[in-house]
């Protein structure tokens, strides 16, 4: 019997540590399934506590992977595929659409279209939809927009029931498509759009990421005709000033600022060996702040008129994702609740400063500081690698590394090319 993507992904450590070179275990799982990466590339799977997972993973992969997990090779027209009067509701229509990215449509989707986990996540954090239900196992979401029932499928199909007319259905699908922009898997690198917007994806540092540059797919199947020139993420705070969604963006950034400040305090508490209720409370606060930032980010993506400008919303969500991963690192340290060894303390100190400086460089569009962060990260990584080999507290070190690598991702964003 063949296995599904989720069965395989579930065997990964889900630490999103970035040590394999991918920003998430989901990307790594995708690459392992297609043969673009080997399970041995995951440092954490080799740790004793994941021994069983590794063995199981090898068995499962040998048994074969279900075709849906490998992505599909489909040659079909994108766009509205079906419009028909509702049989049960007179005067309403049902419409079905196939969303496809890139000018070639969905000709060869090596890794699939939407990441099933990000599909559910993106629709949920937006807070835009009523009666929202989603299954990451199925990669299917069901939601309600103004009385219309919408089903979204991980292969890019969207069904709308009880729409007023075809145009109403198209507008509904557009809204869904924009909300899900960051969940599209890049056929080149296996990362999702949001990975690219977080600086986590290293494959598009010198060119515009195809997912970001391609824009959210349109249900009419129209290709984007705007000529694509590029700028870097350094300019996003400038660009935002002219947008009607400026206030949403700024409110989102404000949440991130507070989250980073809280994270800094938490880091310092841990360095002092403090793991009290106060710290646990702070962790919850950060979660709340990130949720708010994400909601704002989706609003910017959805409401910014021009698609090129809407990328700033994705960047906001991407940085929120980086900070969320940093927070997971801190959370692990708080949860373990044991004082760190001097060696780990020193690494945490370095990691914390990379995280804070990375964010600071991004906020102030300070290219010099950004470059310094990239250099510091390389130094940190060397020291960390040596320590990790010998250390008995590998869990602590992986958590520390998450802080640093995400600061590194944010700093990397500074020179990220964006469509203008």
């Amino acid at each position, binding site marked *: 019997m063949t296995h*599904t993507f989720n069965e395989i992904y579930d065997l990964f450590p889900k630490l999103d540590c970035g040590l394999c070179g991918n920003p998430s275990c989901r990307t790594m799982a995708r690459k392992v399934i297609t043969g673009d990466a080997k399970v041995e590339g995951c440092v954490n799977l080799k740790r004793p506590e994941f021994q069983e997972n590794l063995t199981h993973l090898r068995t499962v992969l040998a048994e074969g992977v279900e075709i849906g997990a490998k992505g599909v090779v489909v040659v079909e027209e994108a766009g509205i595929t079906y419009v028909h009067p509702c049989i049960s509701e007179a005067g309403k229509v*049902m419409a079905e659409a196939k969303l496809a990215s890139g000018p070639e449509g969905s000709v060869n989707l090596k890794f699939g279209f939407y990441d099933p986990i990000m599909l559910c996540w993106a629709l949920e954090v937006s807070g835009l939809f009523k009666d929202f239900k989603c299954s990451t196992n*199925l*990669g*299917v979401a069901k939601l309600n927009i103004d009385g219309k029932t919408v*089903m979204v499928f991980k292969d890019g*199909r969207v*069904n709308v*029931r009880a729409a007023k007319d075809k145009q109403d259905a198209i507008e509904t699908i557009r809204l869904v498509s924009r909300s899900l922009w960051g969940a599209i898997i890049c056929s080149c690198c296996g990362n999702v759009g949001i990975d690219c917007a977080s600086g986590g994806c290293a494959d598009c540092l010198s060119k515009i990421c195809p997912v970001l540059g391609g824009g959210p797919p349109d249900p009419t199947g129209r290709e984007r005709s705007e000529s694509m020139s590029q700028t870097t993420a350094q300019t996003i705070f400038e660009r935002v000033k002219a947008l009607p969604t400026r206030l949403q963006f700024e409110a989102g950034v404000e949440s991130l600022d507070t989250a980073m400040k809280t994270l800094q305090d938490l880091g310092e508490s841990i360095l002092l060996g403090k793991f009290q209720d106060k710290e646990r409370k702070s962790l919850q606060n950060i979660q709340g702040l990130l949720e708010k930032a994400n909601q704002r980010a989706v609003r910017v993506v959805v409401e910014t008129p021009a698609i090129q400008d809407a990328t700033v919303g994705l960047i906001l969500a991407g940085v929120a994702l980086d900070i969320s991963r940093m927070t997971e690192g801190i959370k692990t340290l708080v949860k373990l609740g044991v004082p760190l060894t001097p060696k780990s303390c020193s690494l945490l100190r370095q990691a914390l400063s990379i995280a804070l400086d990375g964010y600071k460089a991004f906020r102030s569009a300070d290219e010099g500081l950004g470059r310094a962060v990239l250099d510091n990260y390389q130094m940190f990584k060397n020291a960390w690698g040596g320590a990790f080999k010998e250390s008995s507290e590998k869990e602590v070190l992986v958590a520390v590394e998450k802080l640093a690598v995400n600061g590194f991702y944010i700093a990397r964003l500074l020179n990220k090319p964006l469509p203008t």
Partner: protein
Amino acid sequence: MPDVAKLRKDFPILESGIVYLDNAASSLTPEPVLMKMMEFYRDYRANVERGIHRLSQRASGEYEAAHGKVAEFIHAKSDAEVVMTRNTTEGINLVANGIDWRKGDRVVTTLLEHHSNFIVWLRLRKRFGVEVDIVRPSSEGILDVNTFEKAITDKTRLVAITHVSNVLGTVTPIQEVAEITHRHGARILVDGAQSVPHIPIDVRNLDCDFLAFSGHKMLAPTGIGCLYIREEYLNETEPLTIGGGTIEEVTEEHYTLAPSPRRFEAGTPAIAEAIGLGAAVEYLKGVGLEATAEHEKSLATRIFQGLEAIKGVKVYGPTDFSLRTGIVSFNVGELNPHDVALALDVSGSVMVRSGFHCAMPLVKEVLGARGGCVRASTYLYNTMEEVDRLNGMVEEIAGAFI
């Protein structure tokens, strides 16, 4: 039990990991059938019945042999009783157009029918003033023989009834209905689209006068089907089309039609497809329909029981599988059946049918599924693992969305 693992190797399309449970719509085609068709194109591609050269002779031989194989498969008295058609629908239309209807004649059909065995009779109303009497099944889709006692009268000329419901997989009491029909001097046409591929058929035992079925639902290619016509009615049934190949003699004044099956098979037939059907019948015979019928029934029972245990899932038709074949129809809460089918495909590569299954009166009026339903239908190559995958996926869908 058929050796499912072994015979699955004949269906390389399954290697991709798909779970194909849309067999009531169309089955897959095994390699031996494809090879047999390819052999025609590669080795002896020629027209039938007209040529004296060796290729035509070979083609004619194979084409005729296909009739023989099908005749044997359904236990017809002779090859002449087997007419090649495009599909079941064409066979039914041949009968509908082949009878010299008179105003006031009556046709009895049921609400269990596929549209192909339903609207054909409604059209007779308009064209010839033929009255149509419709027998209703129970809410579980069971036909009561007593209702036929009332519906069939001396005015009835034809009873048109399905052998197996394409929505519920329920088997109808053909022998009993045939007995009533013949007692009133009428004829009985059986829609065998869902029975011939799945259960052993003996037309003499069934005592039917016409039996229509399709090749594409029984491992054969698309575009080929059969109509069995009882020997006594071969000459009085008017062909649907006439022309090349159907005649014995033509003068300026008249023509004489050839004996069956040629009289019914006008023009160059679907030669490769007919040969493919012959090969499919041989394949089914080789595996053994008794065994596959049992296998399909146990698969469907497992689907039925599995789905029925899921909260919010409604499964249609009788619980007693002695009266059913390998078809199970269901709905998941208020979810649109197309959305359920799409989720099954996208998320699990499970292929099922959704909608009204060309049986709108049954699905809407009898089952009360106003938005249609989802249908899973099994065949000899399906496995218990596949059934469990379907059931697991439906459970997942029900859990997530209702």
